[in-house]
């Protein structure tokens, strides 16, 4: 290991790698509850990574955002999702529209693309966490891929939230976080969004007796 790289940077890179790993894990995961747990874990890792950046740079608002991430992404949202799963009695496996190995292959291609795209930017960055921008982009894309491949509502939402994780990672890694107002606003939006989604689950379930979004294919052009 290159000693010129400070420890904090190594830690951040490590956490980033974990986030990416978790993103892959989520892509491969077939069970709903496990998926939510993985999401919570990702949130936790993100919070830790943010904390490391905060400690290293001494930016106070990063502490806040680390805390916010912890509360929101690692605790509150997984809790809400757990509750929903239990209340809605979602059972069984997460069905994927594409076979998991194929998805993984595509995922690897995406990571390569993301790294390449982010490369010129990372070189411009002077933050300690600059290498993670590629990882953040890859996480966003993997989450995107997950949303595309999953046929049930809850995994799709988890994918959506995982995408937010990736964005958050990008924000901390590239710029030491957005201004506080913005972060708060984003957090509020995510929360409200999640709540609205929860309401939606009940309504969808009521209408279709299932959370399979393949029921939601009536509106189309014929």
């Amino acid at each position, binding site marked *: 290991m290159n000693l010129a790289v400070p420890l904090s940077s190594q830690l951040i890179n490590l956490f980033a790698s974990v986030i990416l790993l978790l993103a892959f894990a989520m892509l491969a995961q077939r069970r709903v509850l496990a998926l939510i747990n993985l999401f919570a874990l990702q949130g936790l890792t993100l919070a830790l990574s943010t904390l490391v950046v905060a400690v290293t740079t001494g930016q106070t608002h990063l502490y806040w955002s680390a805390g916010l991430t912890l509360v929101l992404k690692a605790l509150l949202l997984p809790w809400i999702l757990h509750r929903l799963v239990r209340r809605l009695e979602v059972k069984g496996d997460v069905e994927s*529209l594409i076979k998991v190995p194929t998805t993984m292959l595509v995922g690897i291609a995406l990571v390569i693309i993301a790294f390449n*795209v982010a490369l010129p930017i990372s070189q411009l960055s002077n933050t300690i966490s600059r290498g993670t921008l590629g990882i953040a982009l890859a996480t966003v894309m993997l989450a995107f891929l997950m949303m595309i491949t999953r046929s049930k509502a809850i995994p799709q939402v988890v994918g959506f939230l995982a995408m937010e994780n990736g964005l958050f990672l990008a924000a901390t890694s590239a710029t030491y976080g957005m201004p506080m107002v913005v972060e708060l606003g984003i957090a509020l939006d995510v929360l409200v969004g999640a709540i609205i989604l929860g309401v939606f689950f009940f309504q969808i379930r009521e209408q279709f007796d299932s959370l399979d979004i393949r029921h939601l294919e009536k509106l189309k052009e014929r």
Partner: protein
Amino acid sequence: MPALLPIDALLIAACAWLVLGIAGLVAPRNLRFISKTLFPLGALVGMMVGLVALGFLGESPEVAVLAIGLPDLPFHLRLDNLAAVFALLLGFASVGISIFAAGYFRKGEGTAPGLMCLQYHIFLASMLMVLLADDAYAFMVAWECMALSSFFLVTTDHRHAEIRRAGYLYLLIAHIGAIAILLSFGVMSSGSGDYSFAGMRAQSLSPFWGSAAFLLALLGFGAKAGLLPVHVWLPEAHPAAPSPVSAMMSGVMLKTAIYGLLRVSFDLLAEPLWWWGVVAMSIGLATAVFGVLYSTVQSDMKRLLAYSSIENIGLLAVGIGLTLIFHAYRMESLAALAMTAVLYHCLAHAGFKSLLFLCTGSVLHATRERSLGKLGGLIHRMPWVAWLALAGVIASAGLPPLSGFVSEWLLLQSFLFSPGLPHPWLNMVVPVAAAVVALVAALAGFAMVKFYGIIFLGQMREENLKDAHDAGPWERVGLVWLAGLTLALGVLPSTVIGFIDAATRQLLGTGLADKVREHGWWMLAPISPERASYEPLIFLATIAAAVLLGRQLVRRLYHGRLRRSAAWDCGYVFQSARAQDTAEGFSQPIRRIFEPMFRMERHFPTIRDEKPYYSVKVEDHFWHWLYLPVARLAERGSRLITRLQGGRIAIYLLYSFLTLIVLLLVARP
């Protein structure tokens, strides 16, 4: 106080028409007020327009800029001699039509009379504005207002599905035409950003772009005029409209398209190329032949006239083409001859076609029947209409001594002197074109005999025709006015050419008037009397003298006894109305000779039929060759594209995803 300029007077007239239209909305159901007050007032305004334009002819152009329009392109207006000729046409034709309309509109037919009055007068005003417009925006606004108001007029009786279809087709093709015109203007401004006509005149385009502008204009204005292959709306829309509107559309609106074509080809585009003329002429010939052939086989009287309008437009295009050829070779005096033929034919057609459409209106009101197969013998019940229609028919058939012949004569004269073109190939083609024109003129006679003979002559084909009534006083005045115009245009060609020559001179730099004036007002000799001359008045007088003298002599020398009896008919007993030719029967020879030109669906009776019948339906080839394939193509494209919206959210996300990836990979600053 400065004197009232003609252009101001015309603007005031346009506003007056608008005001009259809006006044119709005040009491939209008060038929008396609208038809007996507003429409006659509209006619008065029309008279004013005509007179102002007449007085203006020969003056130098006047311009005005209004405060409305786009911020950097306010409405530019310009009254020049070309515009004045067409304003003259609009004004005088509208006098007759408006007066006729005053007596025509009845209660309880589709749109409320007030609304109709609004649409009608907007239609008039926008046509006037088309003539006055001197920049692309003002022109397009006026042009599309004209299309819109006439669309609403066409769909007055929108409860019938086929009328709605006609209206749709009309507006669609008008819109496509407008797009082409807009493009043409765009090409002509050639990137200068100056969309006033003055700016376009100042551009000198390369031959390629000039040609592009011309062809686009030909397409755009052709779509309005009814040139092949964008003619399909015309035979649908003209019959669908109430008759005064059909008259206005056929008589006047089509001429605005000719005006536009003249404006673009001779005014805005400085240097015409000879082959533009060939294109215009070829399309014109095809249109004329097509129009006249289809007009002979129609069974609906208004459709017959509509196709006849297509034919006339074709002839106008031929004239324009010929003018372009001469103009391109700098043979200006011949160009002036052809141009005069075009302008004259515009005026003539406006008169006689409006007249004929109005006559069909009267017939329609009297009988509620448009199908030729159910009319007949109306000369006994509607003598006014019948005799006035005869004037229209003779003029429309291009026979002396009425208006149609003069323009045809001029056109043939200009053909005849075409040798001398420096292009050998053209020298060969042009006389052949003359042959086709002659054929068209002769066929027009066939169509007109069919039109007149079947409607007005013979036995009445239906019982209820006995109750038909003649046109009312208002209608008669309108008809007489138009018939009078037709006659005047027929017998006073030199005088008329003296007026319209100003436009020719403006566009070509030379005119006919000087030569024509040398020989007195009764004689038309555009080149020299030795080479060609025509004296309609003397012509008419000789025939009239022979007729009167013959009649008097026979009565004097023999007797004038007369008795009535049943028709002889070679002793044939069954002389019911059914024994006469039907509309289909009359045109049977044409269908037979020109069979490949028509797409026919025929049903022949057989011995085993319980109720044997014969029917024939003639359809337009273009519909199947051009329009349906295009529609199918669009449909197919549309079906392909709608697959994008398959309803599956994952796929939608995939689109978004792929878009992003592609952009990330491909898009580089």
